């Protein structure tokens, strides 16, 4: 992966998203993978195609054109409105762990030259949970897209609403959905990409409101948790329940797109919906050709 997005502000903070060591074990096929090889392959297992979770910064790095990102609201964070036991400590730990101020990074950048507002939820920050600040940043991103007549691209990875903020978290569903509604009314495109996992309140708001909804292979996508459902219906659910492929089959999402094809697919959609493009088109930030096991036949926007 590239490192152009490491902002100096955060560089003093340690990133602990991946444990140290030369080798990583794939949780699906159990194969040991040389870590550098895994990173070169966008953290997709070269053996079985399993998509490892990315941090928000990693997602931005592989999605945007190099040096094109201008972050907005970088410092914005939640407070502890309910004086909820242990919450300030959890927030602080998440900030130190990720080097970010909240569970979403938002800003403006280009994808294959197409200008867009982009937001990426970080599952490594308190499970990507949506409290006041995440809701506010998503709403502001949506408003910025509308004001600047740009598309909005959201990458979601979240366990849902942040319960430490109680009903204020629930209200973020209304805040974000209302903001996205205004973007729709104004006629600008909104692409929603669901990554592993996207559940609860984030699915029940902006993530399911995209003009086009994409998902990464194998991503868990659903409203209620598997255990709660199994307790309710009193039988076991099939293994593929609530996967991206399951949702595609049930007609809930538009496409399942591999990580290596995601950037070009989003770029193609932005092009289709008439997003403004900068000239000259910047160099792609994506460094690696996918490993042979992951390459797919057929064209993608990047090939054209």
């Amino acid at each position: 992966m590239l490192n152009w997005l490491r902002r100096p502000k955060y560089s003093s903070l340690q990133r602990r998203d991946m444990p140290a060591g030369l080798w990583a074990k794939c949780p699906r096929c159990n194969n040991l993978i040389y870590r550098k090889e895994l990173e070169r392959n966008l953290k997709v297992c070269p053996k079985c195609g399993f998509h490892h979770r990315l941090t928000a910064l990693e997602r931005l790095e592989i999605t945007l054109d190099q040096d094109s990102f201008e972050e907005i609201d970088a410092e914005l964070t939640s407070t502890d409105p309910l004086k909820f036991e242990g919450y300030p400590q959890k927030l602080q730990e998440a900030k130190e762990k990720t080097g970010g101020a909240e569970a979403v990074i938002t800003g403006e950048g280009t994808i294959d030259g197409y200008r867009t507002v982009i937001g990426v939820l970080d599952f490594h920050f308190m499970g990507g949970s949506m409290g006041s600040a995440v809701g506010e940043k998503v709403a502001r991103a949506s408003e910025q897209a509308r004001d600047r007549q740009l598309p909005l691209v959201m990458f979601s990875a979240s366990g849902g609403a942040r319960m430490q903020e109680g009903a204020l978290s629930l209200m973020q569903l209304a805040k974000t959905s209302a903001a996205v509604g205004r973007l729709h009314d104004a006629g600008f495109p909104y692409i929603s990409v669901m990554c592993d996992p996207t559940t609860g309140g984030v699915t029940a708001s902006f993530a399911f409101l995209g003009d086009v909804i994409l998902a990464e292979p194998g991503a868990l996508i659903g409203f209620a948790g598997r255990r709660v459902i199994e307790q309710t219906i009193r039988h076991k659910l099939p293994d593929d329940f609530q996967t991206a492929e399951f949702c595609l089959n049930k007609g809930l999402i538009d496409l399942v797109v591999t990580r290596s094809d995601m950037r070009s697919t989003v770029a193609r959609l932005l092009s289709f919906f008439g997003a403004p493009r900068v000239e000259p088109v910047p160099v792609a930030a994506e460094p690696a050709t996918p490993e042979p096991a992951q390459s797919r036949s057929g064209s993608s926007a990047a090939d054209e």
Partner: protein
Amino acid sequence: MAATLPGPSTDLDRQLQDLEGEIERLRRLAREQAIDLGGEIATLETRAEDVRKKIYTNPSPWHIVQLARHSQRPRLVDFVASLFTDVVELHGDRLFRDDPAMLAALARFEGRPVVVVGHNKGKDTKENIARNFGMPYPEGYRKALRVMRLAEKFHYPVIAFVDTPGAFPGDEAEERGQAEAIARNIEEMSRLRTSVIVVITGEGGSGGALAIAVGDLTLMLQYAIYTVISPEGCAAILWHDATKAAEAAAALRLTAKDLQALKIVDEVLPEPFGGAHRDPEAAITSVRSALQRHLPGMGQMPVQAMLERRYAKYRSLGQIVA
């Protein structure tokens, strides 16, 4: 009669139950034996009233959760029967089926046409099984949206009654897009071009409640609750101990008073002493008088101004620092 309440109120509730039982026994005795027990009964009633005061003057959040879930609390059908005339229930989402957990109806409030939607909890086990305990499937939310669109077309106000443990967490609900249905309703209600009054009467269970609860005015009965997660669920996740629900209930700030302080709720509607189940008609009257106060003013504002105001309201909720 008060339900058996766990938590710190248990002893007082049991005392009250015993006293009320004793009063009832003496009354029956007096009637059957034709003897005067007036003095004894009066003494017991005074004691019962003292205990009641202790319990209800300052109920704990967990106690309020029990009141909000009380099996004898007035249900949607009670509110509808008492508040509205010319009620025509509408069925189905036109896509899959009719969901009995969600009610949608055309009605008149003191002559004025309105559209009513609401979670349809039952009074007893039989009704609750038929109505899935007021937990809608996606088709329930889609039915509600369809009928709210009808209200929009004719510029009639929508009155949405909230009383649900949550959206139904089942495999078929997921397959048919529970999350999408909720998200869609929230988005569409945020820009519905007619006025929307939300009345939280019982349980406001998370996204399943919010899916019919985005509007211009949010009213909440005094002992209703509104929360992002059930206290039991919160305790199970945070402390791996569902029995700590009483603590979670306090931490979540889910009472009407809390929510008013957080500006999520505009007005708290008083309930009869001890809770709506003690005098359902009084609770319904409380809702009626609020509707009488607010409904005439609704729809006076130009639509665009109303939508701006609605947007600003939800836009402002939350606490952040930069």
